[in-house]
């Protein structure tokens, strides 16, 4: 066995990653945007001018004005307040779904890469099939079968994101398991679980975390799409996707209903994509070059 096996994990030390990340201006734009959206979601009760669920028949479908900055919907509810509360659903669904997908996907990837052989081929073949199925349709089918609720929505989205995490976790595992420190640990009598948990996992965490920002963007897109179709969190809870759906139903006479939640989704996804691109470029200088 050769002493040095090239590993992608070597270049991604946290210090170097941070340096490369902080030099990129776009990464700061993404980080700033995302921080603002997260703060809005956390402090929603303080920021929202009205109760997002409060209906008011007198002020139905009012265009944006000094009183209602972003207008009101067909129940007379304040669009801005609903938008602010809607950020909570998008972020929570995206974050929790990605955490679940990361836990399951990374475990599958590490175990498949570590064991290798037929098991590896079987698991990766299965995941390839999942990967080739359109994310939105897979989520749609699962959500439709399980029924519309917050938990089911999270499960459906998590399932669609497992395969990419497994792929990213598997590649470094294959090179890590042949490294000297793993060999050394094995010679001390470490079991397989200990080697995977103590030696392989910490060395590839950065690869997985770097990609999670990009996939959270995809998860939030899927959430919005499913809510738009009516498979998301049931009303009256405000979600951006369901707000757009309502706006779509009133599209001829109330443009503001669809436009503002659309922009909110766009900004959030854009922020995560900027952040994710910057993180990936910082972690892998090759992708920055090309």
């Amino acid at each position, binding site marked *: 066995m050769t002493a040095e096996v090239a590993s992608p994990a070597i270049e991604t030390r946290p210090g170097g990653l941070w340096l490369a990340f902080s030099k990129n201006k776009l990464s700061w734009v993404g980080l700033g945007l995302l921080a603002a959206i997260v703060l809005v979601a956390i402090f929603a009760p303080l920021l929202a001018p009205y109760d997002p669920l409060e209906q008011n028949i007198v002020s139905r479908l009012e265009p944006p004005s000094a009183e209602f900055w972003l207008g009101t919907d067909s129940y007379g509810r304040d669009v801005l307040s609903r938008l602010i509360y809607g950020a909570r659903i998008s972020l929570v669904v995206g974050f929790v779904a990605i955490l679940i997908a990361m836990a399951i996907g990374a475990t599958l990837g590490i175990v498949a890469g570590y064991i290798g052989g037929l098991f590896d081929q079987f698991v990766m073949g299965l995941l390839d099939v999942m990967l080739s199925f359109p*994310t939105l349709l897979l989520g749609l089918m699962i959500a439709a*079968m399980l029924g519309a609720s917050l938990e089911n929505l999270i499960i459906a989205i998590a399932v669609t994101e497992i395969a990419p995490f497994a792929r990213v976790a598997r590649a470094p595992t294959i090179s890590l398991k042949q490294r000297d420190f793993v060999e050394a640990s094995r010679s001390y009598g470490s079991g397989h679980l200990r080697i995977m948990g103590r030696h392989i996992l910490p060395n590839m965490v950065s690869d997985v975390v770097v990609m999670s920002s990009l996939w959270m963007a995809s998860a939030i897109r899927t959430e919005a799409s499913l809510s738009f179709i009516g498979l998301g969190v049931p009303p009256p809870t405000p979600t951006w996707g369901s707000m*757009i759906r309502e706006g779509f139903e009133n599209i*001829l006479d109330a443009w503001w209903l669809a436009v503002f939640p659309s922009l909110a*989704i766009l900004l959030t*996804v854009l922020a995560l994509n900027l952040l994710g691109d910057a993180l990936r470029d910082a972690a892998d200088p090759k992708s920055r070059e090309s």
Partner: protein
Amino acid sequence: MTGYVLRRLLLAIPTLLVMLTAIFVLVRLVPGDAASVILGDQATAASLQALRVKLGLDQPMHVQYLAFLGDVLTGNLGRSLSSGRSVVQEVAQVLPSTIELALASIAIGLAFGLPLGIAAAIKRNGWIDYVTRLISLLGLSFPAFVSGILMLIVFSIQLGWFPVLGGNSSNMAERLRGLALPALNLGIIMTAYVMRVTRAAMLNVLTEDYIRTARAKGVGPVQLVLQHALRNGLIPIITVVGLYFGTLIGNSVLTEIIFNRPGLGKLILGALNSRDYTLLQGLMIIFAICVIVVNTLTDLAYGLVDPRVKYQ
């Protein structure tokens, strides 16, 4: 070439089997069972039992599984519960319209994505490179239904350039006008993907020695890019078009709903709303088959573009 084609076709069989099994399991995960979903909460025990027998749900799992596989392989996907027509008929009726949309958006994606990607790679870090990067960032960030709604508001409702309701007009000009916005909506996303991968592929190829040699031999810039560089950069581009096809079908579901076009999207939404359980299962199977066919075709295209692939 024949051997290569045969091998690829054989590889598609286990993939198809896995997908069908997954769909079989997924459908049986429904809380309650198919019969109670179909008949609703008010159903009597007797009618539930009758439907279970009719659907074969009273059989043991392995018998159901084999019957399911047999049905799929003989092209029998059951009958839609709401319309009573066969699933294959329902799909065949709307499929041309979805394919029309998909092909139009792929054409838009290639028409804009290829030249922009090539230009960005040649003039790297120039203004065109930054513009294409911005377009691809936006294109990859917009959920399809969000961009669709914004386009509908701006171009159809505010400016009145395009009809609000698309659809199947027999008049060719009207038909194209109805197709324009939905195709553009999906085409922008496609452009972003194609542009990104074309730029990366070209950057890779342009530094190769044989490009320098060709340039030294006096090959003109146009011929150099199109004949020497692009042809070798085509494989990742074909991969992206092939991979994106699945996403495209997924996105076309939402786009069809927004632009009110007939197609698989409206069929799925209708099946969801009316809890048309056999139609949903049939649609999943058809999607799975489409995805596998496109993946296989993509692999076959590699062999055509790059003769080296065939001998691996």
